């Protein structure tokens, strides 16, 4: 029997029941997880609050959303503890939380109950400006409340022979953004340089820069072209700083030591993340066939561990799509077993100085797994707690990917207490 089910009737625990079950986990973090899990719907009253000159509306992104739209709704939400909820607008029939206005305040509600006040993200000053080539800056880089996002390329070469990750919609989303917004497949380094230069003119607005793109298998050695392109983009960004190294995160393919050494030495990048997505060899081969074909699960892990020698302990990470280990038909059928196995594998990596962080799995319409269901709220709370406890056990900091510099990992929100 799954641990996330009530013993008597096998119904998943509700938000308030999960809060009672985990008095050591902040209710705000539990709420954030559930909102990410179920998504949000903005009522008309909430949409009426939007001031397009103040609020950040849905920005170009590397991945799509649950509503498969690009309509201008608020990009995401901020909670009163300063943490973000990076969350998708979700069709009403899928039972999302509501963002509404009650007594003049923006609030999150569920079944008519007001749960928390929230804020919309505010739009950075650079957003509506243009680069010298005429590109709209928010089509070149985008923002979270305290971070600059750069998506240098929205194409992933694993999709060429239909081996994209099964939860991922990157190429379908790229096609939609290209058709509807004119977002280019690849960003021009000069545009990125100019947009970042403009972004840095706003004091107090940003604490880090995160780059992520699809994998590019091409080159003398596989992925050399991906590395070359990141170096070009990072050098363009770095030209804006008076120091060589600046707070930043590269989320990319698992590169060889030689490739990583080039990235580290030739650019200002300070941290490196390469996502295993699912911590189980068999499931990795099924869920991430492209990664399995080009690198393989064990080599991916080895490259992560070797990256610690280059970037340092606490500056290397791997992301997992929390819950995808329960995808049907090959995933774990019991949440208990899925959690135990995931945390065991995570411990191996964390003990070697590699951070493991999770994002809540959202089955997206543009992905193979579009009709699947993510696991229970209780599962995610245990996963967040388990990863946090492992970081505590091994004294591993995660500053580069925390509540402020990222905001998309409930487990790293808990690192605010470390």
């Amino acid at each position: 029997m799954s641990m996330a089910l009530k013993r008597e009737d096998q119904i998943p625990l509700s938000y308030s029941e999960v809060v009672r079950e985990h008095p050591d986990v902040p209710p705000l973090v539990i709420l954030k997880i559930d909102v990410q899990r179920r998504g949000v719907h903005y009522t008309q009253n909430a949409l009426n609050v939007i001031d397009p000159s103040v609020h950040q509306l849905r920005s170009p992104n590397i991945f799509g959303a649950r509503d498969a739209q690009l309509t201008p709704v608020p990009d995401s939400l901020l909670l009163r503890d300063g943490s973000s909820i990076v969350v998708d607008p979700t069709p009403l029939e899928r039972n999302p939380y509501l963002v509404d206005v009650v007594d003049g305040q923006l609030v999150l509600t569920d079944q008519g109950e007001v749960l928390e006040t929230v804020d919309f993200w505010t739009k950075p000053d650079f957003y509506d400006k243009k680069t010298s080539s005429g590109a709209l800056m928010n089509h070149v880089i985008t923002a979270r409340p305290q971070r600059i996002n750069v998506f240098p390329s929205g194409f992933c070469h694993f999709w060429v022979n239909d081996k994209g990750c099964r939860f991922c919609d990157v190429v379908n989303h790229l096609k939609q953004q290209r058709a509807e917004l004119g977002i280019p497949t690849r960003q021009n380094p000069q545009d990125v340089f100019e947009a970042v230069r403009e972004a840095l003119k706003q004091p107090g607005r940003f604490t880090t820069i995160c780059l992520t793109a699809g994998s590019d298998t091409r080159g003398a050695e596989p992925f050399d072209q991906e590395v070359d392109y990141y170096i070009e983009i990072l050098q363009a960004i770095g030209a804006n700083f008076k120091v060589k190294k600046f707070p930043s995160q590269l989320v990319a393919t698992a590169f060889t030591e030689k490739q990583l050494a080039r990235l580290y030495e030739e650019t200002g990048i300070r941290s490196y993340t390469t996502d295993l997505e699912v911590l189980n060899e068999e499931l990795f081969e099924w869920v991430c066939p492209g990664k399995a074909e080009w690198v393989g699960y064990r080599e991916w892990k080895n490259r992560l561990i070797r990256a610690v020698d280059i970037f340092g302990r606490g500056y290397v990470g791997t992301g997992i799509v929390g819950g995808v280990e329960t995808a049907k038909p090959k995933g774990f059928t019991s949440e208990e077993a899925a959690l135990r196995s995931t945390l065991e594998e995570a411990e191996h990596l964390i003990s070697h100085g590699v951070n493991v962080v999770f994002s809540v799995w959202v089955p997206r319409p543009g992905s193979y797994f579009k009709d699947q269901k993510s696991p229970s709220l209780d599962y995610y709370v245990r996963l967040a707690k388990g990863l946090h406890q492992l970081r505590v056990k091994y004294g591993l900091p995660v500053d580069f990917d925390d509540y402020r510099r990222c905001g998309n990992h409930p487990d790293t929100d808990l690192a605010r207490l470390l």
Partner: protein
Amino acid sequence: MAVKLSDEVIALINNSETVKVLATVDQDGNPHATFKQSLAVGEDGNLFFLELLESSQTNRNLVRSIWFNRKVTVTVRGKEGQSYQIKGKPVRNIIAGPLFEQKYVEVRERLGDVDLAGIWVIEPEEVSDQNYWTRKAAEEAAHPYFLHLDRLAK
């Protein structure tokens, strides 16, 4: 339950010459008290202060307080000896947005090359007058046994 601060208390807290101490507790219950001269009362009646260090003990304790509903205290003492203690709870941590950016610029103008981690907003729940003479009169009225007899001798 929120209380409204009196004009006298607000003026005292907003006076730059007042000494202001914020006390929080860590996860083991150890008290941690620090001077927070940026403490002030905002237009909404709540106290706020600027936390400059993301990794400070105060910041971590306040995160714990806002997450698990734990109280903090602010003690202030004016140069005329007026002293108040305000118990309250952190209700908001502003880490981004227009107010954050305004305070970020202001604090850097004032202190030089410093950073701003966040603005903490504390809702006052209880105010007590901590001035010695006020407290002494209250004690004498409530506890006539709490004194030495020689003070009453002829």
